[in-house]
């Protein structure tokens, strides 16, 4: 595998993945995470007693410490780099590096949220008075995160002629994939049309409610161990070939460029480390909190030229049977979105690389890219994964 032999991640592999129950669960956030961790360890053929590293965010105060207690483990390596929805791409890379360096042997990267059941999601966002946004953003009534993505979409339309119809196609394609995924929240909901998206309620123009991701419960977990140990386990080891990240701003007023996001630097770093380029990637899993999120990342990652995203996504190519299958689960738009979606990008990429995605399987998939976005286009993290067939 190009790049893997010399990378900082060369001594590690992803050996187990799983979701918790998804949708409306009436379970606790910690319970959902624990369910996902146990299922992912089972997927790997490992047990809780093997775990010596815990990585998680989205839990108050000391996330990894809290989750380790709930799981009943005493890890000697902990990680909680909180970058929003991209945290799981970051923590998976950190875990692979730590295992390669010998700091840990079996790491679980986990997440759980019951935001749907708990009705804890606020359209206003969550701010502490010490954050500058409390003074310079909050007084204006922008929805956070929705309005920032709406501002990015509006500017993209102004600069490049991108249309609401083109953005809607991303949601339509996601729904087509979800109809093939029994775990998807919109499985069985029937197909979506471009007119259906455009006719849905406006939230923050030009974005409609069907340009926005779901609000669901859900958890996920990814188990990593050393490559040596992975060779004795039941699943084909999935390698981290490269990783990159970039943080560009936190609040609305500090965005350096609404069109060219930190995905450009994150992706460039991950491609450089892996020795691969966009054309080499078989499986593309890109954070789709909003339709515009995915479009901007496709451009910044180099799958199409800057400003060309609208034309790139047109014509059904993202849908099942298309020549650029995107987000084969149905994505955050139609599969699940428990607040931070990044771990689900990795779970599906691993399944695709192991040939386990059933009706959604991309043939001869050997390389995958997962790209997470955190905050309001604030933080970006890219993972390039690979498997030997």
């Amino acid at each position, binding site marked *: 595998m190009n790049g893997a032999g010399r990378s900082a991640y060369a001594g590690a592999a992803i050996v187990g993945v799983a979701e918790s129950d998804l949708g409306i669960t009436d379970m606790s956030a910690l319970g959902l995470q624990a369910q996902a961790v146990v299922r992912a360890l089972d997927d790997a053929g490992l047990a809780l007693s093997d775990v010596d590293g815990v990585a998680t965010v989205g839990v108050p105060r000391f996330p990894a410490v809290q989750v380790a207690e709930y799981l009943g483990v005493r890890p000697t390596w902990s990680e909680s780099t909180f970058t929003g929805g991209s945290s799981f791409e970051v923590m998976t890379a950190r875990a692979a590096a730590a295992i390669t360096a010998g700091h840990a042997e079996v790491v679980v990267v986990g997440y759980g949220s019951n935001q749907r059941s708990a009705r804890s999601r606020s*359209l*206003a966002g969550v701010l502490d008075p010490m954050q500058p946004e*409390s003074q*310079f953003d*909050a007084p204006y009534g*922008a929805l956070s995160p929705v309005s920032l993505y709406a*501002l990015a979409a509006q*500017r993209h339309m102004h600069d490049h002629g991108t249309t609401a119809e083109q953005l809607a196609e991303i949601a339509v394609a996601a729904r087509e994939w979800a109809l093939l995924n029994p775990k998807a929240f919109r499985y069985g909901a029937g197909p979506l049309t471009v007119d259906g998206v455009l006719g849905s309620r406006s939230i923050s123009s030009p974005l409609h409610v069907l340009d926005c991701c779901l609000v669901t419960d859900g958890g996920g977990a990814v188990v990593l161990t050393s490559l040596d140990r992975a060779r004795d386990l039941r699943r084909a080891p999935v390698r981290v070939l490269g990783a990159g990240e970039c943080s560009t701003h936190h609040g609305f007023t500090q965005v350096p460029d*609404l069109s060219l996001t930190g995905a450009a630097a994150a992706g460039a770093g991950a491609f450089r480390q892996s020795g691969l380029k966009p054309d080499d990637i078989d499986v593309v899993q890109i954070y789709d909190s909003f339709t515009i999120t995915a479009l901007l990342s496709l451009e910044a990652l180099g799958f199409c030229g800057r400003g060309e995203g609208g034309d790139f996504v047109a014509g059904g190519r993202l849908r099942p049977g298309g020549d650029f299958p995107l987000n084969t689960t149905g994505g955050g738009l139609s599969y699940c979105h428990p607040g931070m979606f990044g771990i689900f990008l990795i779970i599906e990429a691993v399944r695709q690389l192991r040939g386990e995605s059933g009706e959604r399987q991309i043939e001869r998939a050997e390389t995958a890219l997962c790209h997470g976005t955190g905050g309001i286009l604030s933080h970006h993290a890219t993972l390039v994964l690979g498997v030997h067939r």
Partner: protein
Amino acid sequence: MTITTPAFVGRPDPPVTPDTRAWWDATRRRQLTVQRCDACGHAQLYPRVLCTACGALELHLEPVSGRAVVHSHSTVATSPNPALFVPPYVVALVVLAEGPTMLTDIVGPRAGAVRCDDPVHVVWEALPDGRHLPLFAPIEQDLD
């Protein structure tokens, strides 16, 4: 699109920090300021301890023209807090003539027709404690 008036029946009271007290105090006189670096001349908002262009720690507040252009805009149709904000209203990122970007609301009779790159100017909304909040309104363009 018709913008209801008033769209804003209240505002979250903006907190003040040591970094920003002088900036907010200037708004009591309806004066919009930016922070200017003594060393390199970089203009920035929000006010903070260092210059983000050169790292210098010496900066001062400087009054600005109040003119800006709309970088992007969005009409909010679903309220983040129905007790405070009554949709529809227009939020925008505006770039001040002096460089820094602000988030704001576009107000006035032509707010709903605002487009990217339109010129706007600052207008002030009184806050309960004597400070003012900078909003922006489209500048009437001469049709000569």
